[in-house]
């Protein structure tokens, strides 16, 4: 497959990469939550995941969720709302809004991880 590196192709590739990452996260998430069968087991797992490392990784999760969700809305606008002609412009809006939401959303994670002061 040949890619022409215009915005639509970037949107497509970023959507796929974030989607694959989210699906792998979903597998791990369901596995972790299955520890609910035992209260102590669950709290131990949650305490383990409270480490700074996982807080930093969760910023990546946030980024994938935000971009995939917003670009998904863009895809629906193109498919159902005749937005094909402005698909590139919507992509820049998706990127800008994603950047803001990820930056703002990262703050609590960084504070929790001790990277930013309380």
């Amino acid at each position, binding site marked *: 497959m040949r890619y022409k590196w215009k915005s639509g192709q970037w949107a497509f590739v970023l959507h796929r990469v974030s989607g*694959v990452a989210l699906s792998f996260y979903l597998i791990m998430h*369901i596995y972790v939550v299955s520890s609910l069968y035992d209260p102590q087991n669950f709290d131990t797992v949650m305490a383990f995941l409270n480490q700074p490392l996982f807080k930093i990784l969760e910023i990546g999760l946030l980024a994938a969720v935000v971009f995939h*969700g917003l670009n*998904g809305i863009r895809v629906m606008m193109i498919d159902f709302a005749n937005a094909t002609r402005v698909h590139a412009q919507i992509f820049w809006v998706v990127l800008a809004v994603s950047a803001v939401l990820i930056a703002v959303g990262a703050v609590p994670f960084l504070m929790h991880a001790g990277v930013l002061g309380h």
Partner: protein
Amino acid sequence: MERGIGSGGAFAWFFQRISGAVLVLALLLHFWVLHYSNQGEVTFEIVAQRLATPVWKTIDLTFLVLAVIHGFWGFLMIVRDYVHSKNMRLFLVAAVWTVGLVIAVMGALTIIGFHPPLPVAPPEQLGGMVQ
């Protein structure tokens, strides 16, 4: 377009969009409930309170099923786009379905099978019931 093994056709295309829209809303709710209510604390007690109610079991089960189908259908589309060897495609499609089913069942068991542990009542409350 070629309709090889693992191609879901127009229904898959439509389903990805509808489930995607629902998942955006479900994720907002999920995020709000887990990270804002209760000051973002996730302990067994807090999760158990929600998961003990039929309404939350239904919401979580719907969320689980839609998320797994959406994600694994995405994997199938990637296989369809990049894997052209018939045997490899058959193997990967089977693998995606297997992992998808296992993870869906695991999640469903967690949600449906969840029942909060019985509260331990102090002895004086049990009164004459304890012989």
